[in-house]
């Protein structure tokens, strides 16, 4: 994962021709940790880290009336003024694009950035909205009955990208109960089907 993040950091700097007015905004959760790491990697090259922020998009979700029990809301922290800044949204997985849609709406309530970009560790396809990422760590093609989870050392004890059947709670440990997904015990066959990839 480290090498992928390093390449993403380089691409972000290249795309913005430096780090002037650059703000990395991680989406809760895991996007925040990835944004922190990318910022550190940028600092190693450029001698200075870009500003960082955190965004929790729960209150902007378009499915809040239907997700059942209320998702836990995490902290949002946008540092200073983002008017005219060049914001890069950082998230772990890009799928339907609805999270990014919510993040764009939320950012608009904080100011009017000159540009908003998107960097994701995993792009798994399956978009439901016209949204694309500027910087992608790794593209994977997955069936709709599969789910990809990104684990980060800060929260999960290790870095990993795991593909699991959608009905499996296998990698839910440590995850915030952010969404209601059907909880069925995973069969041993489906556990075997859960492959790990190195991103």
């Amino acid at each position: 994962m480290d090498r992928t993040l390093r390449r993403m950091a380089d691409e972000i700097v290249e795309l913005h021709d430096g780090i002037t007015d650059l703000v990395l905004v991680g989406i809760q959760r895991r996007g925040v940790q990835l944004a922190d790491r990318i910022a550190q990697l940028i600092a190693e090259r450029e001698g200075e880290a870009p500003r960082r922020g955190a965004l929790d998009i729960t209150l902007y979700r378009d499915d809040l009336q239907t997700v059942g029990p209320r998702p836990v809301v995490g902290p949002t922290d946008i540092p200073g003024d983002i008017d005219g800044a060049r914001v890069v949204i950082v998230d772990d997985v890009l799928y339907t694009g609805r999270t990014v849609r919510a993040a764009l709406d939320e950012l608009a309530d904080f100011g009017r950035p000159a540009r908003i970009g998107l960097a994701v560790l995993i792009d798994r396809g399956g978009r439901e909205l016209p949204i694309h990422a500027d910087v992608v760590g790794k593209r994977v093609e997955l069936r709709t009955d599969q789910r990809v989870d990104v684990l980060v050392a800060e929260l999960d004890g290790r870095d990993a990208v795991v593909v699991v059947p959608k009905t499996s709670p296998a990698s839910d440990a440590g995850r915030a109960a952010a969404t209601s997904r059907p909880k069925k015990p995973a069969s041993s066959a489906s556990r075997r089907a859960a492959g790990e990839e190195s991103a």
Partner: protein
Amino acid sequence: MTSPLGKDLLALEPLTPEQIGLILDTAEPFKEISERAIKKVPTLRGSTIVNLFFEPSTRTRVSFEFAEKRLSADTVNVAASGSSVSKGETLVDTARNLEAMRIDMVVMRHGASGAAQFLAERIESNVINAGDGTHEHPTQGLLDLLTLRDHFGDLRGLRVCIVGDVLHSRVARSNIWGLQKMGAEVAVCGPRSLLPNAIAEFGVTVFDRVEAAMEWAQALNVLRLQLERMTAGYIPSLREYNRVFGVTRERLERIDHDVLILHPGPMNRGVEIDSDVADGPHSVILNQVTNGVAIRMAVLYLLAGGRPELAETAKSTPGGER
């Protein structure tokens, strides 16, 4: 699946420590929304909330209204005077008529203890008790808990004394239940005429002298002397009350530790609390007001999830990456 709080928020007495903890934790991220330039999130867009106030209120009503508006709900305020209530309509008829206009929630303040529960059992909308008689005022209790937790970090083992007119105070009851559930030690202090006869059954320590209460407590929640509810002679005079039970700077300076000062407002300055205490360095009275909006946003957010028919359809909706 229903909301983690059930359909309504009527009192703190029936809640579990986990439920109270969930509300307090949920309030944390809502504090930040009120600090934004655009103090609004779209969470309750399309929800209609009626604020039904049968008793005068400024702070609580405005606080609820801000909380509702900052969550993008549509709100209507109904005050008892000038409405059909003054023409003799019953509480249930008023609420049913409002419900026929397709509302989602009712926030109610009423002079009769138990009014919120009475209403909640008869309408489908979520009901939030904004104070019912001398029973409970749960959101005030919650914002007091949040303010204490902000300052002390943990409520377990915290020594809090409620000073003043406990007899008429729904705030006192919500505080006693809430604090005890969260593991704090609770005492009350006031003239015996303003303490309930059965105060011992609450499991609280009783101080007859405010000086002793200050020695013991890490925080004082100073209650308003509810002059409008006092029909008989509970105290000789306001001046006498201040002389014996007033929270004054002289008294606070005589003890050797700091005591945090809370007051649910509105204050009778110079009666239960002196101005230089209310405005002093240990007062968190305005923090309570700020926290009130965050607590009410959290409660609205958590209750609005409690729509069983929607939760049913949600079971088939996949979550995970979005």
